[in-house]
């Protein structure tokens, strides 16, 4: 049949089961990209229709109406209302929650009036049956003028019906439900005149005008001006019009449901949800359960991910050993082993922790618990300029700031979103763990406090807590600094509790982890190659001298390690380290730590590898030998130990606060679309780190 794939857009309310439908249609054939110009995840996928034709599906962000109120929703508006958009669909599939039809049909009637061929999918019909409601599909289809398909999540029958329906030639919706030409004739005909070449309905012309106005794009500048003039000329009140339109649509929907469904008003309360809410949002119990769940999640993440992490680490060691022995020694060998493979290993090692964290967050969201967490935390978060919805990014931050910053998109309010982005990197992420582990084992004794609590464990807990405290404090300061007239809203649906859909969660984990690996991966590999260059090269004669010095005995491993250490000192990185020594001396750091501070900019865990090179430890994964050499190291001038307790603690505090992560800066830039935000973020976190380390060092000295 036709070779050109058919473009299908999935639209619907949040919680309508849209994404689940998307997942079961496309399976693993999906990818997350970006909508042009905005930083909203664009999920597209492929599926083969029964007649062999290919369909390209786009999962649009969920929305309650076409009129957008957040960045996510404006994407839906842009794709559906602008025929020039590259994602403008051939067919729109509107997904509606059958158990809550009235509200779900509002968006459906707006989309019908856009006059793009569309199909209505009534989802969650199992729930409708349980409520003993009846919906006459045939009647709905006739009165809406479009095809309607009922779908039950537990059966695949609806999926096949849908696939068959989209391959047949679809007419544009038969009639309009709301006509702007009737309600505002003069205004509407001026707007129609503006788009005189289009064959669209008056309503879709009006929505296109709305879209131009919202987009503020340069290419539409003259149109936007004309639209403003038309609005002014007819003193067209947009807000009032949207209100009136919505009410007219609801009137239509009420009549429709009166004719086509039974007992719309006898909705049975969901008993399980109300009982569960009594416990999970209880005054005291609610908080306790939340803290308990968090504790359990972290325990599980850190205990379970040890094994896959060890396996990944081992695999990369094997890989670098075999690559370095297979290739002739030289620059290329060193570049691939110490630059590329080392960088790659630095990303892969975090996959287990990140996947586990996404799994838990996915379960919490899918069961409906996450909405309750936002509910019980909103009041508290608001005090610090945050929103109940900030809880999710802040929790994700314990795995990695990158997906966490991307998760702030659901926060509609600009100021609250900015504050959340700015403070998320203060939450101790998994990349800090190897650094903490090394330093704690170096300066904190493993004795027990009160006979039960391990001192080293307590130190780790304290580091996490100061991260949280730092984030809250910084948020409070930003709340006072940032100015915004935009109102903060916290109006959202509370989904009913239900069992998690494992296949859907599995797909989400896979997709998000993949995004993390590619997003962060690009930066980390690039930086690790640059750092490799900086630490492998230096002013030319210095390197030659070192090689000369060790020439006599080139085979002994110990000599080779010493030579590597000397070379690092002479390299550009080493020179940087020495150059910044005066600045970091008040914190108790020497030039060797200075090098590690610079190299750990690629990713914090690089600190450990750098220490291994500086202290000429052949095997960078042998932590105990790094520890031995570090603790034996003495300052050549003072003769005192380099890693006193004060220096160690100061360094840990520095790592807790400082933004030692290029990828975070890159993602902040991408999400805020202005370089000043990552710059502020870097500077304020750096200042916090410096001051805190200075205080701690002098306290413990």
């Amino acid at each position, binding site marked *: 049949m036709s070779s050109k794939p058919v473009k299908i857009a999935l639209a619907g309310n949040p919680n309508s089961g849209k994404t689940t439908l998307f997942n079961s249609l496309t399976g693993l054939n999906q990818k997350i990209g970006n909508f042009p110009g905005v930083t909203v995840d664009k999920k597209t996928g492929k599926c083969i229709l029964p007649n062999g034709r290919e369909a390209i599906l786009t999962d649009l962000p969920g929305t*309650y109406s076409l009129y957008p109120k957040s960045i996510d929703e404006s994407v839906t508006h842009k794709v559906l209302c602008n025929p020039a958009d590259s994602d403008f669909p051939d067919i729109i599939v509107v997904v509606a929650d059958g158990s809550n039809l009235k509200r779900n049909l*509002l968006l459906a009637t707006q989309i019908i009036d856009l006059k793009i061929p569309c199909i209505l999918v009534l989802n969650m019909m199992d729930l409708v049956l349980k409520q003993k409601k009846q919906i006459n599909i045939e009647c709905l289809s006739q009165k809406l003028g479009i095809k309607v398909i009922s779908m039950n999540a537990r059966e695949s029958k609806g999926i096949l019906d849908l696939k068959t329906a989209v391959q047949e030639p679809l007419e544009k919706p038969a009639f309009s439900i709301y006509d702007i030409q009737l309600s505002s004739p003069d205004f509407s005909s001026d707007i129609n005149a503006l788009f005189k070449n289009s064959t669209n309905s008056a309503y879709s012309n009006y929505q296109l005008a709305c879209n131009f106005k919202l987009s503020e794009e340069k290419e539409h500048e003259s149109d936007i001006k004309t639209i403003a003039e038309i609005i002014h000329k007819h003193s067209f009140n947009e807000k009032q019009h*949207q209100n009136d339109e919505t009410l007219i649509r609801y009137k239509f929907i009420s009549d429709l449901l009166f004719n086509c469904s039974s007992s719309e008003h006898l909705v049975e309360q969901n008993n399980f*949800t109300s009982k569960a809410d009594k416990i999970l949002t209880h005054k005291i119990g609610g908080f306790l359960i939340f803290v308990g769940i968090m504790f359990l999640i972290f325990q599980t993440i850190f205990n379970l991910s040890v094994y896959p992490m060890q396996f990944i680490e081992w695999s990369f060691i094997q890989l670098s050993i075999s690559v370095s022995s297979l290739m002739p020694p030289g620059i290329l060998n060193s570049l691939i082993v110490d630059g590329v493979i080392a960088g790659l290993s630095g990303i892969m090692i975090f996959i287990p922790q990140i996947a586990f964290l996404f799994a838990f967050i996915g379960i919490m969201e899918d069961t409906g618990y996450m909405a309750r967490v936002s509910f019980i935390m*909103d009041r508290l978060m608001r005090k610090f300029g945050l929103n*109940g919805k900030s809880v999710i990014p802040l929790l994700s931050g314990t795995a990695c700031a990158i997906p966490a910053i991307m998760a702030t998109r659901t926060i509609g309010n600009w100021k609250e979103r900015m504050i959340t982005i700015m403070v998320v990197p203060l939450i101790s992420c998994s990349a800090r763990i190897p650094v903490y582990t090394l330093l704690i084992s170096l300066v904190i004794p493993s004795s027990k406090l009160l006979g039960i609590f391990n001192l080293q464990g307590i130190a780790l807990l304290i580091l996490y807590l100061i991260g949280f405290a730092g984030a809250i404090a910084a948020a409070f300061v930003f709340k006072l600094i940032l100015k915004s007239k935009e109102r903060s809203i*916290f*109006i*959202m*649906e509370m989904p009913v509790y239900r069992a998690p859909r494992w296949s859907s969660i599995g797909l989400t984990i896979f997709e998000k982890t993949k995004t993390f690996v590619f997003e962060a991966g690009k930066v980390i590999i690039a930086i690790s190659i640059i750092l490799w260059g900086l630490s492998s090269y230096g002013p030319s004669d210095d390197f030659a001298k070192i090689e000369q010095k060790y020439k006599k005995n080139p085979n002994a491993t110990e000599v080779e390690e010493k030579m590597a250490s000397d070379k690092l000192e002479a390299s550009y990185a080493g020179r940087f380290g020495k150059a910044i020594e005066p600045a970091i001396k008040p914190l108790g750091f020497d030039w060797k730590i200075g090098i590690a501070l610079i190299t750990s900019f690629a990713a914090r865990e690089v600190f450990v590898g750098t220490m291994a090179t500086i202290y000429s430890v052949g095997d960078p994964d042998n932590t105990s030998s790094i520890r031995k050499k570090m603790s034996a190291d003495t300052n050549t001038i003072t003769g005192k130990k380099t890693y006193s307790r004060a220096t160690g603690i100061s360094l840990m505090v520095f790592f807790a606060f400082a933004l030692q992560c290029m990828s975070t800066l890159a993602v902040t830039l991408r999400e805020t679309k202005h370089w000043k935000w990552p710059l502020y973020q870097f500077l304020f976190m750096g200042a916090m780190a410096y001051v805190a380390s200075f205080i701690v060092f002098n306290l413990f000295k």
Partner: protein
Amino acid sequence: MNNWRKLSDLKIGESAVIEEFSDDFLSLKFLEMGCLPGESITLERIAPMGDPIIVNVSGYLMTMRKSEAKTILVSYLGSA
């Protein structure tokens, strides 16, 4: 002018009928989410720190802050 109350004044378990919105900015959002004049609305839960609240409206649960609930004017029905 009439004996309407604010949604935020309801106690847990009390129901009312939505009459009017006092805030233009929020009214569209409320309408789109199914809070329509004439619809009955029940206060289900109040968050541990006294704010926000959960209400049951047109067959589903939604949450809003008290400051937002203040802008929904209701006529009192009684407790369920």
